[in-house]
């Protein structure tokens, strides 16, 4: 299938981002109440051409916050049912695509006054002769109250408790070098028909040297290709991943036999800057659903 570079119009991107910003601003009064940290952007990209990056951290609350920055490793991983988790690994990382050991952040610790903002800069010092491709780490922003006050006892025989709520935001950092290839392969699919829906388990392998970031869309169609239901989820495959699509049956004059169409593409991600997308292959699969 031909590859077409995704490039939504600047006007659409402008309004989309504006909606997200306004939604966050609308919730700003809520954020004034207690511990919180705002981190932007939600992905940082470095490369051999530009080994430095930056991130903005803001304290939108009315209390000072103690913030520390460190690097960890954690990729989206799935179980056999397609449930995804990101487990952070602080040490003993053996993945050859880990960038944790050669990244630095400045500053690494800070106290943010109420409403204050801090820019954190990153620099990559990769080893020589690094093979082409993408290398990953998680920037972990850890935030807590800078002054923790224990509750006072209500009486001589009383016991009081204080649970300190600490927040960690883990942002992906990608370092890119050399020739970059985004290529995905579907190695297995399973269709499980239930009384009210069809579940499709899509097992994918990354065959490129960068993470495959895109969209997985499933459509349940009848014999005349009329759409019964559809589901569309974001996709980020670093090594391998299983995702589940849930396609319910719907009332209507649909004719059996039903079938399922699966479509995977780099295009259409509304939450990422197109400049950072590595365009890859598309996949279209069709299978029986009965």
């Amino acid at each position, binding site marked *: 299938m031909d590859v077409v570079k995704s490039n939504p119009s*600047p006007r659409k991107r*402008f309004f989309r*981002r504006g909606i*997200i*910003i*306004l*939604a*966050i*601003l609308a*919730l*700003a009064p*809520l*954020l004034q109440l*207690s511990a*919180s940290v*705002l*981190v*932007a*952007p*939600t*992905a940082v990209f470095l490369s051999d051409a530009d080994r430095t990056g930056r991130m*903005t951290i*803001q304290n939108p609350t*009315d209390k000072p916050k103690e913030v520390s920055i460190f690097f960890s490793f954690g990729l*989206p991983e799935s179980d056999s049912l397609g*449930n*995804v*988790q*990101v487990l952070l690994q602080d040490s003993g990382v053996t993945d050859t695509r880990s960038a944790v050991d050669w990244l630095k952040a400045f500053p690494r610790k800070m106290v943010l*006054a109420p*409403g204050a*903002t801090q*820019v954190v800069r990153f620099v990559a010092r990769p080893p020589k002769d690094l093979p082409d491709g993408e290398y990953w780490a998680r920037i972990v922003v850890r935030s*807590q109250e800078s002054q923790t006050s*224990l509750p*006072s*006892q209500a009486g*001589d*025989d*009383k*016991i*009081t*408790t*204080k*649970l*300190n*709520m*600490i*927040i*960690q*935001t*883990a*942002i*992906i950092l990608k370092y890119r070098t050399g020739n970059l290839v985004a290529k995905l392969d579907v190695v297995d699919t399973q269709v499980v028909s239930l009384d009210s829906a069809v579940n499709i388990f899509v097992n994918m392998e990354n065959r490129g040297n960068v993470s495959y*970031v895109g969209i997985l869309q499933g459509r349940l169609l009848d014999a005349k290709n009329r759409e019964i239901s559809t589901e569309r*989820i*974001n*996709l980020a495959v670093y090594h391998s991943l299983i995702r589940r699509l849930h396609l319910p049956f719907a009332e209507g004059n649909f004719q059996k036999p039903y079938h399922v169409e699966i479509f995977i593409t780099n295009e259409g991600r509304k*939450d*990422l800057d197109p400049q950072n997308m590595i365009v890859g292959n598309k996949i279209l699969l069709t299978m029986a659903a009965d």
Partner: protein
Amino acid sequence: MQPSSRMKLLTLCLSAAVFLAWVSVPVTVQSQEVAVGQATATVLAALVVTSIQDLNFGDILQGVPSSADIDVVAEAADFSVVGSGGSEVALYLQLPEYLWNTTNTDRMQIAFASTDCDIDANVGTAATKVAPVTVDPYNLPATTLHAVSNILHVYLAGSVYPAVDQAVGAYSADIVLTAAYTGN
């Protein structure tokens, strides 16, 4: 100037104006260099994780276990995650086994049952959940942010078990919530 360049300039200016209007609520003095950085970063989308309410057991008596109710605003812990609507967020809670007193000479057991956590991808409070899903706090599922309100809440309850000879005083421990986008 090309249309795309004008749009970029308009985007940057509007974002800077909106952001400066926001940060001006708490009055702070910031340098121009930092202000420009804020505008550029914020327009790329942000992730905001907030601890709205602490887990609160109130006053505890020796030998009398106490539980926080997950449906009571003043008792259940309430975390919110705000970001790009429709995006999936992986969540992980690090929970303590004990609370320690201020002198680190006595500890009190704290426990979290497999039904002590609710996730609700809607605007609400512990008392006004819209569509909560009860989950094991030691194994939180990745959850999609509400497509319109761009939010999800994590509510947490728990129980403490003071011994009959538990030293009186104030006890504390840390609860850590980690949030990460799965799809980028």
